[in-house]
């Protein structure tokens, strides 16, 4: 019988036990499936349980390991796929009612690579419908319903990779694969206490994943620690003949043997993007971020305040992905089936994409070239850009995202206006890094006092330097234990 303590272990720890034949992949898969059945509905984490495939893969893993043939650190580890990854013979709903019966007859490249690495697919995980491509204004915008933050079930898990956000920190799976176009890995990682890595654009093949934006979609691991992100990325990175934008750049990252060296950030310089609180960032989030920066300093890193170059990151990002989404979903929109989507603002947003002028799309691409050049200069000086993953904790499940921000704690009677468009761009790290296609990792850096909501810090790296940001996040996690907190479920 596999106990809860084992289920909460990292992939690296579980893998070690499996290879030493102290942990059976079959028993681990059975335990994960039982936990998914028990807690999945409570958390709104699951789209489909893949029991049959899981047991077949687990038995194959057990047989191979018994015969002394290990496929590496993911062999026998249960994982969950955001429900936009094609999985042969299993429904892939894209989180949207019009696609609830959609079944592909092939595996996405990522799914195939993980199968080859010996990982065991136990579930397709919930997501915001169509990854929120039309713009959504609440956490319920999903065929599977809202996903809950495991640390406080009255709050949202974050999106659009909401199921992975709920499932990973509650140990329903060993790890998950999420996707990000504009914040969909970083946000649920911050809101739910996940260590989530958004790789460089092109690092991981997008073949078989729902396309929202050909030039902005990325697939990446969502795990319980930074080391696991590196191990999973090892398995899924690489060129793919089915994705012409996939990169040849090699990636190989392994757990450092020298623990003392791994704990040191000496020689690293971070540019720190810190929105001012309380106007632009919740105060507790600001305090947790400041404490995290102190921890980085104590590890030997040099920190310098940084303001992002002046660009309209948000409008550029939205124009890029909306234009591409318009082309991708035009037949779906024009068929009238968009009316079956759950969220009204998503329906309206998708229709509105059809009238985006081509000249704006091209201008966004031209600005993108300028952004890339300017941001590249920053990495001549900085090892990484460090920022709060989000400027506040997870919102309550019933929050309308379009509503003005909630009043400040010290002035509860004062209604705050919504920030003016474009006024927060110098702190828009998610927008900047997604436009430039840069990698980022978000790791937990604290919890709010009253509501026990996770808070995150993100490290943004230079293109194809996931190794650097994983090392930084790993060093931080060796010095802190926020990532080891377990939700009371």
């Amino acid at each position, binding site marked *: 019988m596999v106990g809860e303590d084992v289920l909460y272990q990292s992939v690296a720890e579980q893998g070690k036990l499996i290879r030493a034949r102290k942990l059976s992949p079959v028993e681990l898969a059975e335990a994960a499936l039982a936990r998914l059945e028990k807690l999945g509905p409570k958390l709104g984490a699951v789209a489909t349980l893949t029991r049959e495939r899981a047991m077949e893969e687990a038995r194959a893993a057990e047989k191979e390991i018994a015969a002394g043939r290990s496929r590496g650190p993911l062999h026998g580890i249960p994982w969950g796929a955001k429900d936009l990854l094609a999985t042969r013979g299993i429904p892939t709903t894209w989180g949207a009612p019009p696609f609830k019966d959609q079944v592909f007859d092939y595996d996405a490249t990522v799914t195939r690579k993980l199968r080859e690495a010996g990982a065991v697919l136990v579930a397709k995980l919930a997501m915001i419908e169509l990854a929120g491509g039309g713009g959504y204004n609440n956490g319920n915008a999903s065929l599977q319903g809202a996903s809950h933050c495991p640390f406080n079930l009255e709050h949202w898990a974050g999106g659009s990779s909401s199921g992975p956000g709920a499932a990973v920190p509650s140990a329903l799976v060993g790890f998950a694969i999420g996707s990000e176009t504009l914040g969909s890995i970083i946000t649920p990682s911050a809101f739910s206490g996940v260590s989530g890595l958004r790789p460089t654009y092109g690092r991981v093949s997008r073949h078989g994943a729902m396309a929202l934006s050909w030039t902005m979609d990325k697939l990446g691991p969502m795990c319980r620690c930074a080391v696991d992100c590196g191990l999973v990325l090892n398995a899924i990175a690489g060129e793919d003949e089915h994705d012409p934008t996939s990169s040849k750049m090699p990636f190989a990252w392994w757990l450092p043997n020298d623990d003392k060296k791994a704990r040191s950030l000496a020689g690293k310089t971070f540019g720190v993007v810190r929105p001012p609180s309380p106007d632009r960032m919740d105060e507790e989030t600001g305090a947790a971020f400041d404490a995290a920066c102190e921890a980085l300093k104590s590890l030997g890193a040099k920190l310098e305040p940084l303001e992002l170059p002046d660009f309209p990151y948000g409008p550029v990002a939205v124009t890029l992905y909306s234009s591409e989404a318009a082309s991708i979903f035009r037949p779906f929109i024009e068929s009238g089936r968009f009316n079956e989507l759950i969220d009204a603002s998503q329906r309206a947003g998708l229709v509105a994409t059809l009238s985006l002028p081509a000249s704006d799309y091209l*201008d966004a691409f031209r600005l*993108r070239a300028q952004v890339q050049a300017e941001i590249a200069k920053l990495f001549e000086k900085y*090892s990484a850009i460090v920022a709060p993953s989000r400027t506040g904790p997870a919102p309550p499940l019933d929050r309308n995202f379009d509503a003005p921000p909630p009043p400040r704690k010290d002035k509860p009677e004062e209604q705050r206006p919504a920030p003016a468009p474009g006024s927060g761009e110098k702190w828009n790290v998610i927008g900047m890094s997604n436009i430039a*296609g840069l990698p980022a990792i978000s790791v937990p850096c604290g919890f709010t006092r009253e509501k026990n909501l996770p808070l995150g810090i993100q490290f943004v790296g230079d*293109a194809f330097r996931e190794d650097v940001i994983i090392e930084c996040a790993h060093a931080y996690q060796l010095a802190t234990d926020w990532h080891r907190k377990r939700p009371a479920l």
Partner: protein
Amino acid sequence: MKRREFAKKALGAAAAAPILLRRLPQQPAQEPAKPEPRVKLTPEQEEAVKKATENRERQLSLMRKRMLPYDLEPAFVFAARAKERKKQGGKEASSPVTVGPGGKEATRFRRP
């Protein structure tokens, strides 16, 4: 027909044309037929789409007001480019860097 005779007849025809045209039955002025909208919306949805479009226009205005250099070209095939890095954190860049003519880093655009 002599040139002078032709000119006389042509002048007469030109003078008579407006009178003759006025005698023709007048065609009612017609607007070009509007194409059937491809997406059928309820009035409520039309309002929501209008709101979404207005919101987008506000965002786009922030982008449109920037003057872009004439020679700034879009990256038609987007690629996040790796660039040569200085030694940082005691570690050399491990990723290979393509070096183009003149020692400049080659762009990493892939052929379609």
